[in-house]
């Protein structure tokens, strides 16, 4: 199977977010960049699918030069190939990223595409839909289990919906599957994997190469703002019974939330 995994490089979850002086974005100077955690699940699912069905796993990202590290991480985990749409100097919106990724995918005819359900930076959770639509293939999102049909022409995906319910969805291939945490436990890159990864070539594209340089942004972003700081409130003293009683009274009479 020709398996593709879409990934995004994002600030580490422990990053303390600071804004630039003009609030036009976040300060990126001291950030540790990682593969978005949901995309790690996608890489793992790609590798597991390859191990079960045969084929190759290609990881694909769009972003500035630093994203090469994210691709190397995926290669070190065991991906076979890596592709990079270089966007240095441009900030793309989700629409443009979707166009760029879809253009690469169109050239490569994947049977199956995995992605994380969202990047943990922008939390937009939309690129998967744009890509699937631009490719005109089905998509399933928030997936926690994938079962491949024996003829490799369709799959069943378990999708989490609200309230703990699940939809089991049958889709033809090619299909784009956006995965959620819980689907697997990602391997980390082994040391031999890291050493092998350094020798692999990363195929690069520019937006012009892909014929999507003319796509204009649909949205612009501005005015980043930090949420209001919460401050510590009341401490409730006494034994457990007194504390519980007092809490309920305060929630009812002061905060009026119950």
């Amino acid at each position, binding site marked *: 199977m020709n398996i593709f995994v879409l990934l995004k490089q994002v600030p580490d979850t422990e990053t303390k977010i600071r804004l630039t002086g003009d609030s036009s974005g976040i300060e990126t100077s001291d950030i540790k960049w990682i593969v978005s955690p949901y995309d790690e699940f996608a890489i793992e699912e790609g590798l597991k699918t390859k191990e079960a069905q045969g084929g190759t796993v290609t990881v694909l990202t769009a972003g500035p030069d630093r994203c090469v*590290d994210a691709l*190397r*991480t995926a290669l*070190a985990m065991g991906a076979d190939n890596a592709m990079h749409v270089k966007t240095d100097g441009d900030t793309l919106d989700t629409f443009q990223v979707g166009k760029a990724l879809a253009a690469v995918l169109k050239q490569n005819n994947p049977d199956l595409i995995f992605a994380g359900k969202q990047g943990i930076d922008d939390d937009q959770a939309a690129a998967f839909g744009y890509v699937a639509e631009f490719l005109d293939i089905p998509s399933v999102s928030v997936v926690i289990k994938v079962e491949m049909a024996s003829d490799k022409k369709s799959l069943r995906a378990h999708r989490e919906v609200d309230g703990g319910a699940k939809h089991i969805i049958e889709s033809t291939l090619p299909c784009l599957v956006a995965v959620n945490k819980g689907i697997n436990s990602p391997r*980390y*890159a*082994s*040391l*031999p*994997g*890291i*050493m092998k*990864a*350094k020798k692999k070539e990363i195929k690069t594209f520019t937006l012009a190469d892909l014929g999507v340089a003319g796509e204009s942004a649909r949205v612009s972003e501005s005015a980043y703002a930090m949420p209001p700081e919460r401050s510590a409130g009341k401490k409730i003293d006494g034994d457990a019974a007194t504390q519980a009683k007092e809490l309920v009274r305060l929630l009812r009479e002061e905060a009026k939330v119950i």
Partner: protein
Amino acid sequence: MAGFRLSDEQAALKEMARKFIEKEVIPVAGKYDSSAEFPRDVIQKAWENGLMNITVPERFGGLGLGVFDDVLLNEELGAGCLGIGTSIAVNTLALTPILLFGNDEQIQRLIGPFLEGPKLASFCLTEPGAGSDAASLSTTAREDGDSYILNGSKMWITNAGFADLYTVFCTVDKSLKSKGMACFAVSREAQGISVGKPEDKMGQKASDTRAISFENVRVPKANLIGNIGDGFKIALTTLDRTRPAIASSAVGAARAALHYAIGYSKERKQFNRPISDFQAIQFMLADMATKVEAARLLCYQAGFEIDQGNLKLGSYYSAHAKRFAADMAMEVATDAVQIYGGYGYTKEYPVEKIMRDVKLVQIYEGTSQIQRVVIARHLLED
């Protein structure tokens, strides 16, 4: 000057090792510290992830990494758990004599199995009567046909209870002192080997330390590493190469102690403010950090010189790195306990374990005193 930046692969190695300790070592370090069991499962995972035997050259199927890379790896292992780290890292010490002085056939035959499965090896140099004065050892090797017959006892041998292969240092003639020494690769299966009970140590509980004795153990001549008379050189050259990594494990342990101390000092409130607000604590933290940074640079420099083939300079910096890193880690761990106060003295918090664990680094693989002897010898030689 090439600069201090790690290469992308080295940064990735460090990152990977850090993930490994976060996921596989730190969560179980306390458990193995209290049970003093051998961390088989962690060793298995370390092997699966390629963290063992990293210096085996590529032409023999290894990763072909250098001493500098080993330094990076061992800082992370030391930050995870010195005891578990020692269990994982000791293979490199035990196999280095074969890698450096063995012929191709020996490397393939003796080291090949270590790339096939999570096997362990022990480095058998120290004896009850020969510690810092290694040349005074008294385990004997007697030629007998196409074999040598080994007799004698070794002490403080790491992983001795679980090793599949021992690199054993002996003498063919004690009166020749260092010139009579030889190194043999001895299979665990050889008749006449008996291992003692695990030592009940102060720290590094997860590492297996025992006495081992050889009674008329027959070793084929094919397992003589180098030549008769090379033993002392093999031992010292090996220790020069592995010392930066041992030193680096102490840097890791100290880094962990500092990390815990910083976190605790920001949480712990006295006089209505975090104790990190007090200059007394700030100065302690600052001094701890300076020591960690300085020791790390010494380890890097030692690793770098050895990888460049500057063995003499490497030996010099290795001694500095080992001496300074071990002593500073002891100081930093002690200060971390001090910052925690009474809590730090209990097993509920991680710093007392680090303090017990790092003590051993001042002792094993050349005490801090012997390192000073080495340094002084370099300084005073004509």
